[in-house]
């Protein structure tokens, strides 16, 4: 377990990790915006708009944010799959 991965040069490993952290950061910003933003902090403002028959903040809190969570995970899995292949670290 503790031995270094021999298939990757250190600078490549750094680049792979950087790409991963960058993708995670982007997706988590969206995650925070829809849940803590749309569903909680900005909900009182968004509630002036309507989606269907529901105030928008309420809809984000009890429906919308959950759909976006699911999409975020699959997007991450799909894009990291591509990154793995790019760097030749897939299995």
């Amino acid at each position, binding site marked *: 377990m503790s031995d270094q*991965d021999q298939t990757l040069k250190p600078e490549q490993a750094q680049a792979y990790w950087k790409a991963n952290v960058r993708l995670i950061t982007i997706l988590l910003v969206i995650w925070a915006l829809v849940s803590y933003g749309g569903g909680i902090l900005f909900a009182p403002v968004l509630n002036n708009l309507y989606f269907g028959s*529901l105030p928008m903040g*309420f809809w984000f809190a009890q429906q919308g*944010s959950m759909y976006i969570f699911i999409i975020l*995970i699959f997007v*991450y899995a799909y894009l990291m799959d591509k990154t793995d292949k790019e760097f030749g670290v897939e299995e």
Partner: protein
Amino acid sequence: MSVEVWTYIIVGVTFAGYIWIGYQNRVRDTKGFYVAGQGVPAIANGAATAADWMSAASFISMAGLISAMGYDGTIYLMGWTGGYVLLTLLLAPYLRKFGKYTVPDFVGDRYYSQTARTVAAIAAIFVSFTYVAGQMRGVGIVFSRFLGLSITGGVIVGMVIVAFFAVLGGMKGITWTQVAQYSVLIVAYLVPAIALSVVLTGNPIPQLAFTFSDVVPKLHTLQTDLGLGSYLYSNRATIDVFAITLALMAGTAGLPHVIVRFYTVPNVRAARFSGGWALLFIGLLYTTAPSLAVFAKYNLISTFENQPLAEVRNLSWVQSWEKTGLLAFDDKNGDGILTMTKGDANEVKIDNDIIVLSTPEVAGLAGPVIALVAAGGLAAALSTASGLLLVISSSLSHDIYYRVLKPGAPESERLIVGRSVILGAILIAGYFGINPPGFVAEVVAFAFGLACASFFPIIILGIFDKRTNSQGAIAGMIVGLTFTAVMILMMRSVQLLGTAEPILPSFIGITAQGIGTVGMILNFVITFAVSRMTEAPPQDIQDMVESVRIPRGAGAAIVK
């Protein structure tokens, strides 16, 4: 056929199915017992994770809590789904690459410390105990209502069945049983929700009916008129809603029985995708719950409010729920007409837990559907209980007994220790199931607070910050855990210590369920600061961190 007969048949058939699957997948080696031989496909692990994690609280209590809380029920909806984003992006792939059996395994190896391993194991046991008590309560409620036992009797029956599962299964047996249990519980949840949605709105998709029909605004108006509070807008402090949601999200990502499911897949890619499948399967129930909450509550208010008590008592489902004590009428002003409102004048007491369980009867569905809901509630409770009991058992028999106390212990001996532990755990959990500290979902919420204040920060820093060392992690974990436990104890002292008033009602506006967020922040800050003030971790540990960041080699990672 009567509902009772249907219930015996459907519960009997599903139980026989679980036992058969568990028996077919029984294992004898520890790798099979703890991590299912690491051969579970991503989609199956997603379904197993969904069943493992959707507890009696999710199935039985959540829609009821949401219906009582309105907008504020959001804390459970977002809190219990958003954590999967954190889990899949920040934890699961790297822990899978690490490739051992338990969460304390990672903590102990990453922080090269038996103290860290022991603290993690004790935290895992504590968290799982807190959580499993809620499952026992759920089992008791289902048995008492549908099979005519008292709640105490129901809990005891549940204890016997759960004991059987946990000892028989091992992780491999538990995994495939959970896949079956997911199928049962999701069908049992969706059928009545769809039926009620059609009855009230004519739309068969509850999520669409929730968004586009006028039931939600109508309920909101009705509630406001009756003085029951707003449904669409918050009745709580924003900081509290924020803190509780974050505590539940980070707690989900830090719960040992959820994390350990990601050890069972073949590689890192499968770990990422099974996070997506898990949340998709969970989301099916969680996006339905708010619709069910609204439809059921609207329906109950229309049935009771301003109706003659004698007429209401003629309904057969009202009679059977009154017997359980979860539904109660008290015609205080003696006019023979029921009044629903807030405070002393209220004449109808509806326990939140009956919202889901009574839906099929209220919607006038036939006996088999009522029985299916009972089977679904039991599937949710049993699948979660078996996953938790495995964590308690592996923490004691693998992490503490084998890795700390007696490193040379043979496998057979470790299995005996693990099984004795499970039996003891079930007895303690059963006691708390009979004497619950609060609502099922609230009991469970404490486990989340403790998980988010202990594991979540040190696992993340262990992966993303090479400089985090043993001293930092131990200090952070102890402070986070102690702070959160003491705060919960003081805020819930009425229930837990028997004081007349809570010793501390809230901490800067944050209540007991959200206090884990503060514990988590403390843990992050202290782990980070103490690590920077003490020496860097040894080179081989830093190499290990480099290694878990690269997916290749996970399939070959041999557990020593």
